[in-house]
C-alpha cells in the first residue's frame, strides 16, 4: 500500500509529461504540490532567446502605465529610491568562478546565451526627475570602480552598498549626485568562488543592523561542503562596528531582502535548487526567522530530503523550517519590495516580486513581476501578474526583471538586466487634482 501512492504519482507525472502541454502543478502559496525528484541524462533546458524591444512593451494591468526611465545601462540589478525621489541603480556582473568540470564548460556557454553581452558597469548610477513629470532627465554616475555592487540600503546619512566581496558605506547628503569620496569597508563578505555572487541588503528599521543575503557556492554541494562555509545564509551586520553573526541559515540563494512595514519583520525571496525536475524546487518568499534553518542543502520545503547531498544530516533536516509562500519552480525571484498605499487600492497591501526567469524548465517560468497580496501581514492569495511580456508570445525574451523597488510616491521601479533598462510602473491618475 505504501508503494502504491508514489507509483501512482510517477505514473501520473509520466503521463502528464507525455502530454507535452503545460503540466505545471499549483506551486503558489503555503502548500505547493511537490512531485518526486527526477532528472534524465540531460537536465531540462530552455535558454532565453534575447531580442530587442522594438515596438513591444512590457504589459501592466489596466489603470497602470509603464515607461523606460533609463536605458543603455550596464546590467542594472537592484535600485534604491532615496528620500528626495532620486533613484540609485547598482550595475554589475559578479561571479566568474573557475570551471571545475566538463559540465561547467558546456553549461556556462549555454546559459550565457540568455543574458546581456554588456559588461557589468561596477558602478552606481543616479537618476533624477527634478519636476516630478515622470521623466528622469538627470543621470549621473554616483560611484564607480565598485566590484559587482548589488544590495543597496540607506540609514540616515549613510549609504550602504553590498559589493560581491564586501559591504561598503558612503556618506550621503540629500541631493548629492556624486559620492563625495571613495567608500569605506564596513566588513568583508564571503567571496571565494562566488557561484551565487549577489549580496542582497536590507537595513533594520532602527538603523542598528544590516542584513546581508549570501548565496550558496553551488547548486547542491557539487563543489564540496568546504566551500559552503558562511554561504546560503543571511548575516546580521552591526552597522557601527561591522561585526556580524549568522541570522538565518539554509537559505540557498537569498537574492533579495525587505523589511515589512509596521511589523518590522525581515522577508526574503530565495532561489531553490535545480536539476531534480521542472517542478522542483519552488522558489519562495518567506519571513526570515532569527536562528532559523531553511533546509539547504540537506532538504527542501521542510523535510523533503535531497538525496544528492553526502554526508546527509537527519538532525538538520528535522529542524528545517517550511517557507511561507511558494513562488513556483525555477522562476528565479531576484527582487522583492513591500507595496505602499500610493500603488493603488488593488495593489496596496502585499509584495512585488521580480522573476528573472528559468533555464531549467520547459515551458519556461518567471520572466515577469508578480504581486503577492497580503492580509494582516501574511500572504493571503495567489499571485497576480503585474508586469509581463518580458518573454513575448513569439518566444523571444526582451527583458529579464531583477530588482523591484516601490517609490512611496506611487511607482514600482523595475531593473531589467537583459535590455539594460529601468522601467517605472505608475497608476494612471484618474483626475488632474490627484497630480501634484
Amino acid at each position, binding site marked *: 500500500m505504501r508503494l502504491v501512492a508514489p507509483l501512482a504519482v510517477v505514473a501520473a507525472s509520466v503521463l502528464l509529461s507525455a502530454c507535452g502541454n503545460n503540466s505545471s502543478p499549483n506551486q503558489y502559496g503555503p502548500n505547493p504540490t511537490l512531485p518526486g525528484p527526477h*532528472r534524465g*541524462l*540531460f537536465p531540462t533546458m530552455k535558454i532565453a532567446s534575447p531580442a530587442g524591444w522594438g515596438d513591444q512593451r512590457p504589459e501592466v494591468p489596466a489603470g497602470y502605465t509603464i515607461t523606460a526611465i533609463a536605458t543603455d545601462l550596464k546590467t542594472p540589478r537592484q535600485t534604491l529610491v532615496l528620500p528626495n525621489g532620486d533613484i540609485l541603480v547598482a550595475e554589475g556582473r559578479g561571479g566568474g568562478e573557475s570551471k*571545475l*568540470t*566538463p*559540465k561547467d564548460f*558546456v553549461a556556462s556557454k549555454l546559459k550565457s546565451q540568455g543574458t546581456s553581452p554588456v559588461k557589468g558597469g561596477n558602478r552606481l548610477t543616479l537618476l533624477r526627475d527634478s519636476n516630478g513629470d515622470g521623466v528622469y532627465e538627470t543621470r549621473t554616475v554616483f560611484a564607480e570602480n565598485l566590484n559587482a555592487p548589488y544590495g543597496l540600503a540607506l540609514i540616515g546619512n549613510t549609504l550602504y552598498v553590498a559589493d560581491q566581496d564586501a559591504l561598503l558605506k558612503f556618506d550621503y547628503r540629500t541631493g548629492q549626485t556624486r559620492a563625495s569620496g571613495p567608500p569605506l569597508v564596513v566588513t568583508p563578505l564571503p567571496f571565494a568562488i562566488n557561484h551565487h555572487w549577489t549580496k542582497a541588503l536590507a537595513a533594520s528599521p532602527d538603523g542598528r543592523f544590516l542584513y546581508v543575503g549570501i548565496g550558496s557556492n*553551488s*547548486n*547542491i*554541494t*557539487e*563543489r*564540496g*561542503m568546504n566551500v559552503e562555509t558562511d554561504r546560503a545564509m543571511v548575516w546580521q551586520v552591526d552597522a557601527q562596528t561591522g561585526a556580524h553573526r549568522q541570522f538565518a541559515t539554509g537559505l540557498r540563494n537569498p537574492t533579495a531582502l525587505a523589511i515589512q512595514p509596521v511589523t518590522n519583520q525581515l522577508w526574503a525571496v530565495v532561489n531553490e535548487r535545480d*536539476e*531534480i525536475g521542472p517542478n522542483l524546487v519552488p522558489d519562495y518568499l518567506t519571513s526570515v526567522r532569527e536562528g532559523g534553518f531553511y533546509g539547504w542543502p540537506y532538504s527542501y520545503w521542510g523535510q523533503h530530503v535531497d*538525496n*544528492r*547531498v*553526502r*554526508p546527509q544530516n537527519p538532525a538538520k533536516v528535522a529542524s528545517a523550517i517550511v517557507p511561507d509562500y511558494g513562488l513556483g519552480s525555477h522562476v528565479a525571484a531576484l527582487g522583492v519590495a513591500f507595496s505602499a498605499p500610493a500603488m493603488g487600492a488593488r495593489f496596496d497591501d502585499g509584495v512585488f516580486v521580480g522573476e528573472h526567469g528559468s533555464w531549467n524548465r520547459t515551458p519556461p517560468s518567471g520572466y515577469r513581476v508578480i504581486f503577492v497580496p497580503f492580509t494582516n501581514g501574511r500572504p493571503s492569495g495567489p499571485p497576480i501578474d503585474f508586469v509581463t511580456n518580458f518573454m513575448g508570445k513569439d518566444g523571444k525574451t526582451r527583458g529579464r526583471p531583477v530588482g523591484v523597488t516601490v517609490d512611496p510616491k506611487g511607482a514600482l521601479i523595475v531593473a531589467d538586466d537583459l535590455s539594460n533598462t529601468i522601467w517605472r510602473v505608475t497608476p494612471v491618475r484618474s483626475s488632474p487634482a490627484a497630480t501634484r
Partner: protein
Amino acid sequence: MAERGLIDRGRIHPLHAFLLAGCVPLFLGALLSDWAYSSTYEIQWTNFASWLLVGALVFAGLALLWALIDLFRADRSWRGRSLIYFLVLLAAWVVGFINALVHAKDAWAKMPEALILSIVVAILVLVATWFGFSAWRPGEVK
C-alpha cells in the same frame, strides 16, 4: 615451403595501439576515482573521474575511428576478429559517453550509476584491448 615464425595478420598501427592502450588507464582512473568518491564523499574525486572520462573518450573515439577503417582493410581471414574488436570498442565508447553524462549530475545524484557504468566500461575496454592486440600469432608464413 613453410617457415615457422611470427606473422602479422592484422597488426594494428603503432599510433592506433597508442590510442587504444592510452584509453585504458584513463577509464581505469575514472573507475578508481568513482570508487574513491563513493567511499569518502570527497567531491574532488568525482571531478577527477569526469575529466578522466573525457580523456578516455577522446582516446577511445580516435581508436574506434581507426578500428572502423581497419575493418574494411582487413583480409577475410581476419575480418571476424576485427569486427569483434570494433563492436566491443564501440560498446565501450557508447557506455562511456552515457557515463560522462551521468557524471554531469550534481554531487551524489550520479551515484551509484556512475560507479556501475565505470565498472562496465572498464570490462568492455579490457575485452576490446584483448581483441585489438591479439593480432600477433605464431603461425606459418605462406
